């Protein structure tokens, strides 16, 4: 008997320890964490989370205490009756009315408390929800169009005033800090979900519909986002980065990105450009300022300035780039990037060219 009861206590301790771990500070850091907010929306959600967390933790502890106390009491009672009457197995069909009354009061009270807690939750949820969709500052005109597709993100910076300023990039979104930015989200193939946990919750991109979302970052930093709706083979490798930078830095970035690609300076890069134009690369990719203008794959006009390639899968370094160009399927099986057989010299030249596209 004693042996049977004993293990319940360590279990509770373990559960408690595990619960405590969630609130530990270590869990709160991360470049893709909902608990490390970098913007007003994520912060509001985080506050709501902690409200829910502490209340729910208290409820859980109460229920567990009730359970263990009930087990303890009932077993004590059983032992008492066992010694007194030796008819412990006789079922109680008409329990003592005062006990029943007390139990009824407890159950009704607990239910009432549940209702009250839920109501508080409901109101808190509505209040938070309203704040998420109304940007405080509507003056900013920056709108970014994000197109999720299998398995990368096409990013277009729209400019209603001047169509010349519209440009396309991929998998890396720069935003100015302390400014709400509107995102226009769409998907041409299957459903994806745009999610930057440090800034805001997710929004599904449904083919045939356009969704809007606004984001704001309070502090500069790089925040990782990832497709959150299962979208096929390479759903796991469909990430992107949001780089929040001070407005002046952002403006400089914007100016640079609007420019067409730099003409290759070195001989090797020039040869690389020729390789690009004569290889399958040109069938899918755009480099503004050259004859490459296909929209199937990511825009490579400034690919050298990005931090990652293959939708956040590999760091943008020469070795990884070479691997990606030559044998993308070993990195990201099923992705749309075909294997390319280039001679070593051609490959080196191509890499020189791509890296020169700053």
């Amino acid at each position, binding site marked *: 008997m004693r042996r049977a009861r004993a293990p319940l206590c360590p279990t509770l301790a373990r559960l408690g320890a595990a619960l405590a771990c969630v609130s530990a500070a270590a869990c709160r850091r991360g470049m893709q964490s909902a608990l490390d907010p970098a913007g007003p929306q994520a912060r509001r959600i985080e506050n709501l989370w902690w409200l829910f967390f502490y209340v729910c933790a208290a409820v859980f502890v109460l229920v567990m205490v009730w359970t263990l106390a009930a087990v303890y009491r009932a077993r004590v009672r059983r032992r008492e009756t066992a010694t007194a009457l030796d008819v412990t197995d006789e079922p109680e069909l008409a329990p003592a009315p005062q006990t029943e009354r007390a139990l009824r009061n407890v159950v009704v009270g607990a239910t009432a408390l549940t209702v009250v807690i839920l109501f508080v939750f409901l109101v808190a949820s509505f209040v938070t929800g309203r704040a998420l969709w109304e940007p405080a500052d509507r003056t900013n005109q920056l709108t970014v169009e994000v197109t999720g597709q299998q398995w990368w993100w096409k990013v277009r910076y729209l400019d209603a005033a001047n169509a010349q300023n519209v440009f396309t990039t991929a998998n890396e979104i720069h935003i100015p800090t302390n400014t709400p930015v509107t995102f226009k989200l769409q998907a041409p*193939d299957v459903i994806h979900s745009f999610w930057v946990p440090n800034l805001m919750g997710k929004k599904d991109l449904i*083919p045939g519909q356009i969704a809007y979302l606004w984001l704001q970052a309070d502090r500069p930093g790089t925040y990782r986002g990832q497709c959150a709706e299962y979208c096929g083979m390479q759903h796991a490798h469909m990430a992107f980065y949001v780089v929040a930078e001070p407005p002046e830095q952002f403006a400089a970035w914007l100016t640079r990105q609007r420019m067409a690609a730099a003409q290759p300076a070195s001989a090797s890069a020039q040869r690389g450009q020729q390789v690009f134009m*004569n*290889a*399958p690369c*040109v*069938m*899918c990719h755009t480099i503004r300022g050259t004859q490459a203008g296909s929209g*199937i794959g990511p825009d490579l006009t400034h690919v050298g300035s990005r931090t990652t390639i293959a939708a956040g899968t590999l760091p943008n370094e020469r070795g990884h780039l070479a691997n990606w160009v030559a*044998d993308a*399927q*070993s990195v990201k*099986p*099923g992705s749309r990037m*075909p*294997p*390319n*057989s280039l001679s070593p010299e051609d490959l080196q030249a191509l890499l020189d060219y791509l890296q020169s596209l700053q």
Partner: protein
Amino acid sequence: MRDEKAVGSRSQEPEARSQNETPALPTGRPVIGRPVGEAGVSAAASSTVRRLASGFRRLASSFCPLPSAYCLLARFSPRPSALSPLLLLLLLGGCARERREFRPQGAQGPPVAQSELTPGAPAPTPPTRNQAEESAYDLNEGKRLFQQYNCSGCHAQGGGGMGPPLMDDKWLYGSDPANVFQTVVEGRPNGMPSFRQKIPNGQVWQLVGYVRSLSGQLPKDVSPTRDDHMSAHPSEQRSQQRGPVNSGPSKSEEMPR
């Protein structure tokens, strides 16, 4: 064509599936404008035989490719080869259709060079085997590429426009996969550009398969279904088989025999 021994040996390295019978082109054989069959009757007969043969091939090819459970067992079983005979029975049903090959061996090979010059009399060309035509995934990729590479720009959705229609039964330059492959890679007179080196071979084979599915040359269970666009015509899996009639561009361009 594939005995049990071959499968057994494959099981030791389940992933290193040899892309045997990579549809090597019958190099050196005239394929342009080759009239099919001496007479209409034999053309029909040969088409039946070809379909039968393709059926057998499909059955045989079903032995091959990485069936999930097989792959799992091979991975975790200490002696995977011992399981082979048992699994073989299971695999008879056909799974080439579900094959998804991401790094085909043949795809990186040198582009196929063709010469129309040939010593002696031309030998009859055996039909080429295009593995992409057995895999629904490859055909679907072909369909995607057909749109994305803007083949539709000239051929419309297969109905024809600036380029000839691909849904009908007429094949100007032959309906064999090798012919179509050559058409894409080499280009053809009067507007079909050459995509030599522009499209990797693996993708060309996918396109070849798709183009052939447009006129119902392929079994329905692998042919692509409708996509999420406006439907200009019934999907490939529902198109009736047409022909093929290898008409040749015109009498004057026909090869001397």
